[in-house]
């Protein structure tokens, strides 16, 4: 019972943390984008305002029970990843579920939400949603390959599938995995581009073409939950990268610095990129990133 309360408490606190940080990152993204485009841009807290606005929308519609549940599905993924990914080294932050699952579990729980939401999007009957979903799934089949290759390389190199163990190894040796397994880091980094769905991989919800794709029928509270989930998930993913490749973090400030510097990569890459078509992005991920992944595996096998 004590454990459950502790985990629940931890979940709430980490959720708030992730929500805050994630949404700030999103706002900073908009700000930086604006600055690069020689605009003033919205304030950094603009996304907070947006979220609160969405949350305070008075009415909302849904097309059926699957669409109603869709945001809950995606929330499961966000919160579960947050719970499985250790926030700080040696679990110094709130203890969560990270001793209960491993990388493979994480990989699968990360697709749970998108698929659930895809079902909701499908139920709306809006063709744009379904088209967006098919693009998203196709792209996922693309970027999962280098991503899994990178993870497998780590697993075989350090003989563990536990994230906590991988972090401990970095703490013990004092060497970040992005230096000791550079190819894995490269592959994972390139896969991250697809994971964040910024340009050039933003064909899933291309606003001009698909009317934001899977989310096109969601407004009000549904969009509110989805947006929060997206921010939390973004933070969780960044934390995972930091945990795996950048030696984790000993306190929250370091964590924020590391995650933000990591976040700059997809962000800046996206700002200067046009958009790939689906098959182009799929082929992209099966090209160089997968080659790096292969090199990572070879590196792990022979060194």
């Amino acid at each position, binding site marked *: 019972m004590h454990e459950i309360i502790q*985990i629940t408490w931890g*979940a709430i606190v980490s959720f708030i943390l992730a929500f805050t940080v994630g949404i700030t990152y999103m706002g900073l993204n908009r700000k930086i984008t604006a600055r690069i485009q020689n605009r003033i841009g919205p304030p950094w807290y603009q996304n907070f305002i947006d979220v609160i606005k969405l949350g305070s929308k*008075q*009415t*909302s*519609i*849904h*097309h*059926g*029970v*699957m669409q*109603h549940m869709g*945001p*809950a*599905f995606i*929330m499961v993924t966000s919160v*579960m990843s947050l*719970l499985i990914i250790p926030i700080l080294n040696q679990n110094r932050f709130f203890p969560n*579920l990270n001793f*209960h*699952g*491993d990388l*493979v*579990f994480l990989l699968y*729980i990360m697709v749970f939400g998108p*698929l659930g939401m*895809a*079902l909701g999007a*499908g*139920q*709306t*009957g*809006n*063709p744009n949603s*379904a088209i967006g*979903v*098919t693009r998203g*799934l*196709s792209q*996922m*089949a*693309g970027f999962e*390959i280098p991503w*899994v*290759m990178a993870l*497998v*390389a780590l697993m*075989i190199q350090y003989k563990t*599938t536990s994230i906590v163990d991988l972090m401990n190894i970095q703490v013990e040796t004092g060497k970040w995995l992005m230096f000791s397994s550079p190819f894995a880091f490269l592959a994972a980094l390139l896969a991250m581009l697809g994971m964040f769905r910024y340009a050039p991989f933003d064909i899933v919800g291309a606003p001009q073409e698909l009317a934001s794709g899977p989310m*096109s*029928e969601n407004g*009000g*509270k549904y969009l509110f*939950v989805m947006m929060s989930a997206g921010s939390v998930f973004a933070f969780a993913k960044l934390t995972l990268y930091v945990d795996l490749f950048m030696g984790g973090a000993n306190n929250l400030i370091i964590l924020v610095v590391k995650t933000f510097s990591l976040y700059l990569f997809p962000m800046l890459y996206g700002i200067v990129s046009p958009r790939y078509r*689906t*098959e182009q992005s*799929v082929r992209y991920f*099966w090209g160089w990133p997968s080659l790096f*992944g292969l090199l990572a595996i070879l590196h792990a*096998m022979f060194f």
Partner: protein
Amino acid sequence: MIYILFSILLGGAILTFLANKISGLLRDTFFLLTMLGATLIFYTQLHIGGLVNFSIGSFNLEWGVNSFSWYFSLIVLGLGTLAAFYALSYMKGKENLGFFYFSFLISILSMLGIVMSHDLISFFIFWEMMTWSSYFMVIYSGKNVQKNGINYILFSAFGAYAMLTAIALVYANIHSLSIVEMISNYGQFSPALQTWIPILFLMAFSVKAAMMPLHVWAPGAYSDSPMAYTSVFSGALSKMGIYGMILIFVTMISHLPDDTWFREVFAWLGAITAIMGTLWAIAQDDARKLLAYSSVAQLGYIITGVAIGTDLAMLSALFLAALHALFKGTLFMAVGAVERQTGTVKFSEVTGLIRKMPWTFIASLLAIIALAGIPPLGGFVGKWMLYESLINSNHYILVIAIFFASTSAFLYCYKFLFGFFLGQEEKEWAHVKEAPALMVVPMLLMAGFLVILGTFPGILLKPADTAMQTLGFAPTEGHLWSMSVLFNAWGDQVLLRPLVYAIAGIFLFFLIILTVKGWKNTRYVTTKDISSSGEVPLEHENLTFSVNFYQPFLRAVGPVMKHRMITWYREFGAGMETIFDFTRRIYTGNGQTYAIYVMVFLVIILLLQNTIFG
């Protein structure tokens, strides 16, 4: 007891067939009683380890049950009984029902026979019975019989004859047909035989398990047989191939001095099967075809697991085998329900059934989640074990291949659910109602079992572990799994219970928030009320996106899918037919030619007499 089991099934089959002439009710009663009787006897009366002997045709036939065969009988009878209930309702009003039920029972009998045979000859007999009884099912619908039916029977016969050759070789060498003796004497065979016997056996088994170069019969056969049977066909009958493979791999291949390349080849064939099956499943518009290709792909995973053959891999293969029976059985049943209620199985034709057939949707949703291997359902456990075993046994590229297959599987999983149940609701399907309870309940039972397995996989892992111990593996309970915990060889673990509870808790929490917040101002709107540039779709306008569903993805993988195995076979077949036609012309129908043949024969023999009769 095995006698009684078999004679109940055989007698029941014949009685059902005969009762068909009298009345439909009697036939259904007989059918159900037979199935239930067999299941009841199996669970209550059959003891593991019991053996019966008798001789026929101067061979000593031996039947018995061990834990390994018990595990597979469990799949067969469990799925068979549920499918039997389903069939009663599904087949109502169709033609040739006596024939259908007869073949159904005979195939159940033959599957049980296969796993309970302890000698090769009855193994082969039951194997062939299984082939022709399922062949009847493939051609039952009367569509494409000349293509799919012949394909199926030809490939099955090819496999069966390979097996027959192997059996003959074994018999010639050890003068015994007992499987146990074959295994124990395996080490004394000549090296050539040691290689060839397993290869021949594996050819037979990989036909039924639809492994890569021998899989071309499967999509047609699975999609053409009645769905009530296809669930058994794909769920249980294909597992007979897996059963045989496990037997061969454990008892023979592992004794080969160079078994590594053997295992590698088969593991890779399994992986390629998985990939290609998945890709082709994505391209299908027919739900039955989609599931058929998906079955091929899923069997590919299992084959890979079997071929790797470590403790964890074998455990995952056994677990996945049972699981595949559960979820693919459910899915084929769901397709059958949709087919029965709407009359079509094309994704491009039927949409938006979720509100009309909610229970079918729930069952398929759960089955699809399990198929995709997403926690918190049972599918994840099998997938997890497979990946871990592959990584632990140093098959790094293979694990990527398998992972690619199962990631791409999300595509067709979504297509299945979307195509039938989601999308715009149409007036054309407004009349559709939920399938009868007899069809829905079996689906829901199996789906419910999948949910339970997600939290407590130990329920199924325990018999699987016992089965493996029969095959000579060390017990794995406690260090590879316990009731709801999974371990890998490096000591990492997945504690399913807290994870599943956490998932359920988070889901419920947010669902409640979503529901309660603005409860009064949340409104349901029809699927015609969508934001499509301010337009209102008309009643007959269906905006659902269902044609060329994954066109971009298929374009990306296009080069791989350019060549189809089946065209090669077809060209080979066409070439053979040409040769046959040419041969036929030897018989010209002209008497003089025949007389010349006689003389030429005589002359040739006279000339060659010293060579021939030297």
